[in-house]
């Protein structure tokens, strides 16, 4: 049931997904949320996923990116940036 998987665990799982897809596919918040619900079923709610994303962003482990749509990414230097 909801709450059985900790927000920290969800955040770690999400981080792994983001890290594995880095450079190949930009993942949106909804992609991560749906993946967690697919993995854990009703043990994870959308609010849990939202809290996990918030934790990833606020801790600096991930950042938001934008290229057409918004995505969640591992911090990196963007190609367009001038030094």
């Amino acid at each position, binding site marked *: 049931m909801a709450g059985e998987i900790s927000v920290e665990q969800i955040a770690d799982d999400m981080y792994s997904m983001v890290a594995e897809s880095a450079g190949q596919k930009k993942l*949106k*918040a*909804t992609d991560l949320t749906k993946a967690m619900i697919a993995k854990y079923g009703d043990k994870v709610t959308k609010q849990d996923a*939202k809290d996990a*994303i*918030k934790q990833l*962003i*606020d801790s*600096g482990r991930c*950042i*938001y*990116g*934008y*290229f*057409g*749509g*918004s995505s969640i*990414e591992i911090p*990196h230097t*963007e190609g*367009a*940036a*001038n030094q």
Partner: protein
Amino acid sequence: MSDELKTPLLDELEKGAWPSFVTDLKSMAGKSNMVKDLLRQLEKSYRDKRGYWKHGGLVGVMGYGGGVIGRYSALPDEFPGVSHFHTLRINQTSGWFYTSKALNELMDIWDEHGSGLLNMHGSTGDLVFLGTVSDELEPTFRAVTEKGWDLGGSGSDLRTPSCCVGPARCENACFDTMALTYNITHKYQDELHRPMFNYKYKIKMSGCPNDCTAAIARSDMGVIGIWKDDIRVNQAEFANYVDSGFNVQEFVVEKCPTKCISVEGKEIKIDNSNCVKCMHCINTMPKALAVGKDRGVAITLGAKAPIVEGALFGSVMVPFMKMEPPFEEFHDLLGRIWEFWDEYGKNRERIGEFIVRIGLATFIEGIGLDPIPQMVKQPRDNPYIFFEEYYKEEEEK
């Protein structure tokens, strides 16, 4: 590069009848290398017929996924002043009411941390700070938030809610646009700052069908004031219009889209059962006519500009909803719309495109609305909204 600023092509833009942004930029070029190089790069763009901006997608402030739009010059060696030229969106006040003190404080911050260039207002409604470097983003954010301001939305999030002046200055307002805008802004802080949708979602509030925020054309969700009962008529004031020589027949009667107005002597008669709330007669004779007293909103969904797919106008999803604090019915509907779109929408698919793809019938079933005839597609092209209970009352009389 020489310090001399030569912009013969941009100079052409100063010759028209309208105020020119080139003139504004030139007035600041003397005290800002950033503005000077902005003019130079723009001149080169006009000459070469191509843009020299690179899109930055990662710059921002800690914790926020919106509010900062990254831009870099593609020619940083030639135009070092605009090597970085990021934009910050500052959440505007409801109805765009400011004190001089507040604006001066904002501009002092922007003069210190950025180019000093301000756009009032961007298409979504924000105050737009144009041009700063990456290292100044956090200090700017800190400074504006210390003064009680916040960043607006950008990316796949709830964009900064926007409204007309509403009841603050307009007698046509059918609901408190500013109160709803303030409420939405505060209730959905996460949705505003932490992109979680398939794509952007804009909400605009217009107090009446004049739709001064262009909600029906420019917002995914338009909340437009409307009334259900009869247009209020002051026959004495109408007679004054006639006595003053105002051509009521030409300018009002013949322009009524449903021909529901007639004049007998110095008395106006309105068949309210056929009125489509176009506002023309009320706008033309504001002393004689006024919106009714049974007020609320119509809610449209699906408008957008032609970025990914073609442009769409909003269509009526809810023909009438009472709109009073705490706005529970509205929030309940919005939650259902977001939930359904979130679940079945595609990446970069606006709500209007989503409705087109899955079909209106599936959509309204998905958000828990019953189909009714008043769900008019793009109502400015079609007869607008009719409320049967008022016709029945009229017939019973």
